[in-house]
Structure formats: C-alpha cells, structure tokens
C-alpha cells in the first residue's frame, strides 16, 4: 500500500520554546486509510497535524506527504492543495459571510475558474447536506452545521488527504456522530485518506489504525481494539478505554482476577470471560444512596421565549432542586438547558407567571424581585461553558478574588476564600501569582471555576464543565465536583452525556424542546423501557452493558436488580467481584 503521509523520527520544537513538542515520532497513513492519532492535551498531537500540512517544518527527521518532502520549497504547494484540514473551533475557520462564499474560499484561492467552481461548491454542499442553506449567514449556523461547512470547504478542494484536528471536540454527541458518519462516508466512497487527531475514544474506535501519543512520542500503535483495550496504558496516556475492557480491569483491581488482552478485545470476548468466572453469581445489594429532601431552589411554571414570534425556549418548567444533591440536566443542544440555568441566578428573569424561588432557612427569595437578585447571585454560582474565556485579571489570585470582592468580602476572609477555592480545584500556590493567560486551557478552566467557588455559593450550576477536556481532564474535573459536593455544595450539572449524568448524579432531569421529559433517580429512570421510548431517552451504555451481562451470566432476579444499581464501571466491578466498597 502506498503511503499518503509518512513521518520518520521527527523532532520539532516551537521557536519560543526549548522543549521538543514532537520528540522522535514516526507514523504512516496509507492510501485510503482512516487513522486516529490519540493523545491527552499537550501531548504534541496538534503539532503533528501542522507538520503534515506544511504549516511547520520538522527540526529533525522527515515528513513526506504524497511522496513529497515537506522541506521541498518548490512543491509544498502540491501538498497543501491536496490536503484538507478541519480544526477544533467551528467559528475560527470560517472566512465567508454566507455558506456558499465560505465553501468557495479554498477553490478560489487555487484559481479554479467558473463554471467548475460553482459546480464544486454545489456538489460539496449537497454532499454534507447544507445545500438548502447555501445563502445562510455562517455566523447563524449551529456548531455541528459549522463543522459540516468546514468539511464542505475542504471537499470543494477535492483533496486526497483529510486532516481533522480535534474537529469534534466542541460538538455535542449527536452532532459528533453525524460528523463522523460523514467522514466515514468520505473514506468509503471517495477513498480519501484521513488522519483524525482526537482524544475522543468512540471516535478512535471507529478507525482502521490508532497511534497513541504521549509527551511527543508514539507509545502505542495498532488496530483500535488492540490498543484502546489496553486499559493501564491508556489511562497512563491520559486517555480512556471502552466500558467492557475497563470492567475487566476494575475487576482485576478489586479481586485480583487476571485477564489477558485477548479477553478484553471485544464485548463478545469480555462477556465470554465474565461467563467463565461469574455464572450464577449472587450479587449483594449495593450500599444505599443518600436521600435529599429539603428543597433549596424551586422553579415554578416557568416559560420563556427570546422573541415574541419564535418558539418558546422553555415551556411550563416545574423543578425542585434539593439541598446537597447533584442534579444532572441532560438534553441535546438547543433543548433549553442553558436558558433554564441562566434563570437560576436571575440573569434571565421569569416572564409571565413563572417563578424561581430560593429557600434559605425560613426566608424565600425570588428572582422576580430585583432587590433580592444580588443575594441570590451570592448563593447560586453559575459557571458557563468554556468559562476560561471570562478571565481578565493580571494574576490568577486577583481573578479568583474578583467575585468574592464584589460580594463584599475583605481582608483575611477574602484571602482565605481565594486560597481555599484554589486548593479545591487543585491549583498550586505558585500558580496564584501567574497571569491566567500563561496557563494551559485546562488550568484556566480551574481558575474560572475557583473564581465562582470562592464566592461560597450554596448551589453551583455547571454548564458542561468538562467540555473539550481530554479524558484525564474530565476525570479530574469530576473529582473536583465530587469534592465540592462532599463539602455540602448543591450541584446542578448540565451535560450532553447520559453516561456522565448516570455516574455522578443523584437525580437526572432530561429535557427536550424546552420541556422536562422526566426527573428521577438514575436507577429508576431507566427501569421502564416503554416510558424511555416515549421520552426518546437512550439508556447509558453502562446500563445497557450490565443488562447484557445479567442475561449472559443467568443472574437470578434479585442479583440482576442489584447489579443494575451500579452507576459506574468500578461499582459494577465491586458488585460482580463481591467486594465491599
């Protein structure tokens, strides 16, 4: 097989750094192959993309694309013309004001004349399904549509090689799936070679070959099932593994029962392994989960529309938030989650008869009264999506102190609040005097979170706190959240992911088209299959997998019920292994 792109022992350092971002890495992408380059943030994987698209040159080693050395000044244009890139941020790669103008931008640059140009634009837009929106303003598209537009812009160049640089990181799961199907169609039908740079495991599992990158080096390579199911290596690289291999690994951790990589390769092999060891197992009931009864926030009959004519963003929402619980709000982009949470601290005030009440001891505050909003904001901390974009102060310390200062905290109390908050999110003391803009994205997010925690809110509302983070970052974020909850903070977590909600929440509230479809504790929510179908909710992967296991092991009804009460892979492993938590 011909190689589309080849990197051999490449080393590369950015001009402003003496550290090698790529430190002796080699990889090969065959013609028509679909390859994933996986790595945690800062592993050097995006730098690799830049080397392959001749946006940077290697210091040592060679990069060849279509057989052309990227150092060949006369021919680098041939590489770039035939290589298309889609980057992470949908907004920052659109040049055109309207959809078709943007698709035309690339072919215009390489001087494609009409009528071929308009044919290419038309075909590309039809391919990605945006043809009916060709005259739309690009700024008004959704995130998923913007990434499809980026693909169309690439397709119009008729490339032989497609580079996706974390192209799905900012998409919700449904848009991500649509995007990936589109890419797979390209590989299948147009025989385009694809390298996707990602830290999303489901994305990687759909490719032909994966490379794992860690600190500028390739540490593992091979077929996805061989690499991704190697749990300890994956966790070390800051990544994650599929549920089935993780379950075997957790069982090994809990009971010492060893398994081979062969056992962990597929769902089938994992089930076979479980069947051999746990058939007819008796599974004890897991320890009871705490109950939360005291109402802290009540949302009553809340409806909201952004303009008079448009559809309602919220329709008759009734929801109680209990003191001390973690409530997860789940739903697709545009279902009204963000509108609902911006009501909770009075940034948006209720329209009509709707009400948002905050119960504090015997007093009831409502956002309908302007005077009480300030008090409510003190008690309800709101952290929006990508909060790192709101940092503005000269030092991390001052940024964290901004909120509490505005709330009237002073002197030692303020100092303590800032330092406590920094500690809670896992920031070292030395970071406090740095500029927030020197930090990595993940650390910036922690600073932003600390800025809200320092205000000592009773309720913390988090909108997609782990969005865009790599698996290690996600795990750390949820550890922080668990710590906050343990200290008594009530948490409202907005997420796209049912599995994430299932693992961490005491109750799940699912939303669709501005309405609440159901509120219940996670276990009960997924018991009634017909109700789920009606609400158009899919059960989490974990739960579906556990159901399959229960059948395979032939568990008795009580054991099955007990097993299905596991909310995390680890919990399931402990239950299966008969080990107390």
């Amino acid at each position, binding site marked *: 097989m011909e190689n589309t792109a080849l990197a051999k022992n490449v080393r590369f350092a950015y001009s402003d750094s003496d550290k090698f971002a790529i430190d002796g890495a080699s990889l090969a992408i065959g013609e028509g192959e679909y390859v994933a380059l996986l790595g945690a943030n800062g592993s050097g994987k995006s730098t690799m993309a830049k080397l392959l698209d001749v946006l940077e040159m290697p210091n040592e080693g060679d990069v060849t694309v279509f057989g052309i050395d990227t150092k060949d000044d006369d021919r680098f244009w041939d590489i770039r013309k035939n290589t298309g890139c889609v980057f992470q941020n949908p907004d920052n790669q659109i040049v055109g004001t309207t959809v078709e103008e943007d698709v035309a931008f690339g072919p*215009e*640059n390489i001087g494609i004349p009409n009528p071929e140009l308009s044919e290419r634009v038309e075909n590309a837009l039809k391919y990605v399904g945006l043809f009916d929106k060709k005259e739309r303003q690009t700024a008004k598209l959704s995130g998923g549509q913007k990434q499809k537009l980026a693909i169309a812009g690439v397709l119009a160049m008729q490339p032989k090689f497609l580079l996706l640089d974390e192209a799905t990181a900012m998409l919700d799961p449904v848009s991500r799936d649509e995007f990936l199907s589109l890419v797979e169609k390209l590989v299948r039908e147009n025989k385009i070679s694809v390298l996707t740079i990602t830290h999303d495991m489901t994305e990687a599992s759909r490719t032909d070959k994966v490379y794992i990158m860690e600190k500028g080096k390739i540490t593992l390579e091979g077929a996805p099932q061989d690499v991704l199911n190697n749990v300890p290596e994956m966790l070390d690289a800051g990544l994650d593994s599929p549920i089935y291999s993780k379950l075997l690994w957790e069982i090994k951790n809990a009971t010492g029962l060893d398994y081979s990589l062969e056992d962990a390769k597929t769902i089938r092999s994992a089930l076979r392994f479980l069947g051999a060891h746990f058939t007819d197992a008796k599974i004890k009931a897991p320890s009871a989960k705490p109950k939360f009864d005291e109402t802290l926030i009540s949302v009553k009959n809340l409806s909201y529309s952004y303009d008079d004519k448009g559809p309602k963003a919220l329709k008759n929402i009734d929801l109680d938030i209990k003191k001390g619980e973690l409530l997860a709000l789940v739903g697709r982009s545009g279902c009204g989650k963000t509108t609902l949470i911006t009501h909770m601290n009075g940034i948006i005030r209720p329209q009509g008869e709707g009400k948002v009440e905050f119960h504090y001891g015997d007093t009831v505050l409502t956002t309908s009264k302007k005077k009480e909003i300030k008090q409510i*904001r003190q008690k309800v901390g709101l952290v929006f999506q990508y909060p790192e974009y709101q940092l503005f102060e000269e030092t991390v310390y001052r940024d964290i102190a901004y909120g509490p200062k505005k709330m009237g905290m002073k002197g030692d109390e303020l100092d303590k609040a800032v330092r406590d908050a920094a500690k809670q999110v896992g920031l070292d003391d030395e970071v406090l005097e740095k500029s927030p803009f020197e930090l990595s994205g993940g650390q910036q997010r922690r600073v932003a979170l600390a800025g809200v925690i320092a205000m000592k809110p009773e309720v913390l509302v988090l909108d997609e706190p782990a969005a865009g983070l790599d698996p290690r970052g996600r795990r750390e974020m949820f550890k922080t959240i668990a710590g906050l909850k343990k200290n008594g903070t009530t948490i409202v977590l907005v997420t796209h992911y049912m599995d994430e909600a299932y693992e961490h929440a005491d109750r799940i509230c699912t939303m669709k088209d501005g309405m609440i479809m159901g509120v219940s504790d996670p276990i009960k929510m997924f018991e009634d299959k017909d109700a789920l179908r009606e609400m158009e909710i899919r059960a989490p992967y974990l739960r579906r997998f556990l159901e399959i296991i229960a059948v395979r092991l032939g568990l008795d009804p009580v054991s099955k019920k007990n097993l299905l009460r596991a909310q995390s892979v680890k919990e399931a492993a402990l239950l299966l292994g008969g080990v107390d938590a």
Partner: protein
Amino acid sequence: MLKDISIGRYYRADSILHNLDPRCKAILFILYLIAIFLLRSPVAIGLLVVLTVILQILGKIPPKVMWNSAKPIIPIIILIVVLNVLTLKTGNVIFSWWKITITDGGISSALIMAVRLLMMILVTSIILTLTTTPLKLSEALEKLFGPLKVIKFPVHEMAMMMSIALRFIPTLIDETDKIMKAQVSRGADYDTGTIISRLKGYVTVLVPLFVSSFRRADELATAMDARCYNGGEGRTKLHPLKLTGKDVMLFIILSMGAFLLVAVENIDRITKLF
C-alpha cells in the same frame, strides 16, 4: 441589548436593489451622501423623504427593519435638535426666558436637520448595508479601488480585512453577551454606579474579548493558510461581479434621484439661468 445593533446586518430579500451590482451601489451611496449634504430647503427634504420611501419599496425592506436601523441614532438626533433649537436664533422669537431664546427659525432648521440626518441613515442603509452582503461590498471596493494597486496600495488585503471584520461582528457580539453574563454572575454590575466605575467595569468584558480575538485571529490565519490562501494573485471568484445593461439602467435612473434632489434644492438658481 447588544443584539439590536444593526450595523452590517444584511436583510435577505430578492429585490432589484439587492441584485444591483455592488459597485453601482457604492457609487450611488456616495452620490446620495453628497446630495443630502447639499440640501437645505423643505421642498427638497420632502422630496428626499419620498425618494427614501421609493427606495425602501424597491429594496422590499419592511418598515420594522428600517426602524431597527434608525433606532440607534435617535438619541443623537434628539440631542442635535435640542442643541440647534437652543443655539440658532433666526426668525421670530416665540419663547424667551432667562438666557434661553427659542425662535421659529431655529425650530424649523433643527427639524430639517433631524429629518435630513434620519434620511441619510435610512438611504445609506437601504442602498448599502441592508441590501448588500458585506462580502459583496468589499468586492466592490476592491474593484473600485483596483487602479490603486499600481502605486502598491494593498487593495485586496484591505478588502479581505474588511470582509473578515464584518464576518466576525455577529460572532463577537455573541461572545460579548456571553462574557457579560458570566461576569454578572460573579457580581459585576454594568447598569448602576458612576460613569467612571461603569467604564472600569467594562474592563472585565474588554480584556477577555481582546484575548479571545487574538486567539481567533491566530487560528483563522492558520485555517486560511491551510485553505491555500495566498493573497489576491490568481484568485477566482464564485460570483464575479458582472455589470449588465440592467445594472447600468437602474444605476442611471437611481442616480437621477440624487441629481433631482440637488436640482430642486437649487431651483431658484436654475430658473435664473434661463
């Protein structure tokens, strides 16, 4: 609140004004601007109002959209009217108290000034921003200023910068809105306090906005590089500007409007000539 700003907001419709060659519109815009500057007489202003309505109908622009583009300058117009009424002292005095004297001449010229200003905004938004996409407009400017390339003036680059700036206006407005909400959640207050403390408060919005704009610029440059952007040399166009007979006709008819305005304004002098 920020979403009301209509600068650069294109109103999509299919009208003869929308389809007119943007170069023609750019020239018409200048002609009308000059003409309106020359107007003084109530008759000419009246004609201007009639022309504005005709243009609005030609552009198929609903009154609500017109109102939205006029709204932001209403306070300025009111300020100008008040200043004029208070300072211009021509004609008969109709009110006088302490140092304030109001004359009928002052009022009428203030009103003419107000209508003229309002029409100026409306005519220019109908001819330019509402019916022309920013990209079309920058293409037109690129073509019109094309000859300046001879003296090494970066015409293409300027046009590209302009179209990118316009493309990012809605994005940055959305971002500003988001940042403000986030800072309000942290106790920021942009509505109360002295002007100085309010201005200071805006630092909390401006700094993040600048930082993110730089990041955006950086990423956009990479993306443009990756899409083979290499300056204006050898570029083709999806919809190249083509001047048709229809464009020329419409241009001549519409420019007559501007000349007519000037003619009506100077009707006395013209009649004297004959």
